[in-house]
């Protein structure tokens, strides 16, 4: 039995603690917004937060979530208004959309820890999030847009 919170809600999960968090979320808890792309931690589509840190849920065992806060794309905001979600919308980022939840979750954790990254830092931070459709130019624009909005919010504008 693993005890954790998922998107702010306390849960007790009865499953083999070695089960990847991805499958716990998708099949047991019913949160299907976290995507399966590769199963090996190479593509980032499965990115969720554990206590605010981005992890690849396809290679993170359920046991790692013990007493921790799991956040999925569904819990990033209650209504789609996280600055990254808004920026992704304004920049019209997605094509097929399959990678985008993972892109947003990765960027969210990264920007929370480093609100004013250089382009090189952005490249490194996002290197593990693949987009087969090639929406990278817009991902970059959206991250910059979100950075600006988050800084404005910070400074109370």
């Amino acid at each position, binding site marked *: 039995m693993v005890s954790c919170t998922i998107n702010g809600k306390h849960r007790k999960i009865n499953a*083999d603690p070695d*089960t*990847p968090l991805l*499958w716990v979320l*998708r*099949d*047991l808890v*019913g*949160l*299907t*917004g*976290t*995507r*399966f*792309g*590769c*199963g*090996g931690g*190479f*593509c980032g*589509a499965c990115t969720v937060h554990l206590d605010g840190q981005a992890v690849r849920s396809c290679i993170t065992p359920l046991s790692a979530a013990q007493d921790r806060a799991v956040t*999925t*794309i*569904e819990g*990033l*905001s209650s209504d*789609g208004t996280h600055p*990254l*979600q808004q920026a*992704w*919308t304004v920049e*019209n*980022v*997605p*094509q*097929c*959309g*399959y*990678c*985008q*939840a993972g892109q*947003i979750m990765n960027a969210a954790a990264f920007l929370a820890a480093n609100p004013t990254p250089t382009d090189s830092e*952005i*490249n*490194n931070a*996002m*290197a593990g*999030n*693949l*987009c*087969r*459709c*090639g*929406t*990278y*130019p*817009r*991902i*970059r624009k959206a991250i910059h847009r979100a950075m600006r909005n988050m800084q404005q919010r910070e400074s109370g504008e």
Partner: protein
Amino acid sequence: MSDISQSRRLFLKALLTSTGGLVVGFPAARILGLDSKTNDTNIALGAFVEIGTDGSVTIVAPVPEVGQGVHTALPMLVAEELGADWPQVRVRQAPTGSEYGSMGVGGSDSIRDYWQPLRKAGAAARDMLIAAAAAAWAVSPDSCRTENGYVVHPASGRRLSFSALLPTAREMHVPQQPKLKDVRDYALIGHATPNVHVADIVTGKAQYGMDIRLPGMLFAVIERCPVYGGTLKSFSKAEALAVPGVVNVTEIEPLMIRDFSYGEVLGGVAVIAENTWAAMQGREALKVVWEDGPHRNESSSAISSRFKDALDTGLSHVIRNEGSLDHIDIDEELVLEYDLPALSQSPLEPMNFTADVRPESCEAWGPVQVPRNLQALLAIWLELPVDSVTINTTLVGGGFGRRLAVDYGIEATVLSRITGRPIQVLWTREDDMQHGFYRTPSRHRVAIGFDKKQRPVRWRHQIVTHPIAGTTSEHPGIYEVQGAADLPYDFEQITVQYAPVQTGIRPGSWRSVSHSFNSFVTNCAIDEIAAYTKNDPYELHQKLLGEPREKTIILPLPGRRGKVVCDVARLKRVLKLCAERADWHRPTPNGRGKGIACCYYKTTYAAHVAEVTVTDDGNIRVTRVVAVLDCGLVVNPDGVRAQIEGAVMDGIATVFDLEVTMQDGQIQQTNFDTYPFARLADTPELDIYLVSGHGSPGGAGEPPYPSVAPAIVNAIYDATGERIRKLPFRRT
């Protein structure tokens, strides 16, 4: 019974005469829908427009959204004519039904094929609403128009909402030839429009195939022979069944319904469980013995060697032989050989499908590019009427040609029939990488003959591939020679020859199909001619293209592939615009290079200039790409731009990173660590220009891809003096 046979024959004919089975042409009258369907809250006005009693407008998209933007662009056509309030429009995917036309995506054809029918559908619904309002107001319909979800009568200022008009509108006669708006009156078409699914995508609400949940469903993964064409010898179930959650282990037999290769089920051992992870764990525990079969010794080096032999001895198919060299002596010859790898489409969403087979019907859900093909094949196999099989296409996490093959949908159906339960089949990334329908490897020889004045007068392009149509097909080169046989350049003599060779790498369609390798070769070869004759490559392209005119090229291929038309003026123009925007004639500093390439794909014309920089550590970076596209009338400029952007990233990966190789009959690539496509850091500066086109729209999914890789490779030559004739070109 005869109805079933007739419909099966029609589908079968369609399947056999097209790449990936697109049904071409459908009766326009049926598109408007002859009966209005209803549910409690949504009234259909024809097949494509549903209006809710709450005023909502739902437009039914007839083709799958695979990331190419059709769920936005096609409904825009309907909404424009209808006069809907676009921000309030919802879009839903049509389930399989002949009233929706071919429903296939895969040749960049959707916008062209549906341009007329969808505008008519929107206009017909509009006219029904106007007729209802005009009757209510006792005015002439000509004095009314629609805007933003209302019928308005400008003379009196009266307006009525679509929902208010619904009860009477639905009783109106469906006009078969409604009048269409003038392009100058477009409020929506031609304007940048955001992707209709963005809100769902960024919140995780978007439903992809794996998200389907049905009562009583089970989850299955399939262990397949690592060697293509191998067979199951024996397997042991006990270990897998012992894994908690596993409920069934069963053989699934290899299957090809009516010889349709894009439905080939490889067969293997299926592990069926209560959840996905249990199925995967069960599969790990399986003990399986394979008989590896005829391809067990196949390797990429052996293939390459056989291809090289075929270039010398096997070129049995002359696809083009035009012109003559009377009075011209060939003084010098340049012979160039190109060696290009197999590629995997690797859409990020792995293959999956969910099927629920009942005694008299079957319903299935999942990502597919050609839902009516899958429907037809399942109807044949299940021995059901076509209309008893429904395919619900989910939002597709990328197609790129892989999902023209429908094997995974058949697998789910087979397992559902065996178990009597709804079954979701999932392919792992390794499954997808290892058991694909790959872009064929290819070898090319281009021989250019020059006269005494060093003018290139003879062009001979010889191509070897493993053909999609099969080596024993009457026209094996049918899908292999586009981009080569339809070369629009002026040479005194052009010859294109093709040799089919069987390999152990199963062939399939990969974004732009044969253009992906042929346009690479032709653009690289022309660049080599330029260097050889000390001409500027851009000037040489323009010179070889000759006078602006429509050039018709007749080829010995069936159907539309036998007659290709190149509007040379449009190709020259995209080249010119591209060169201008790239400041082509500006000398490039040391350590940098520029390369140019162009391509026409059906009625769309593309040109690219790539700039590369040699970095301090000797690496090569693509630093800028200028892309020009002429796809005729542009429905959604933002959507077209997005395709161009994505195609640049695809082209970069093609040059530097991508190959699928075989050793001992097995594909060597397993996951994205061994098949890495481009990343955020690889993004160059982009300058994209859309030619303002008129007339009707052409496609934009594939056309922006083929000229990217050769522009990059030509730029690398400009920067380093090194010619690349084999891909991928590994950066250090």
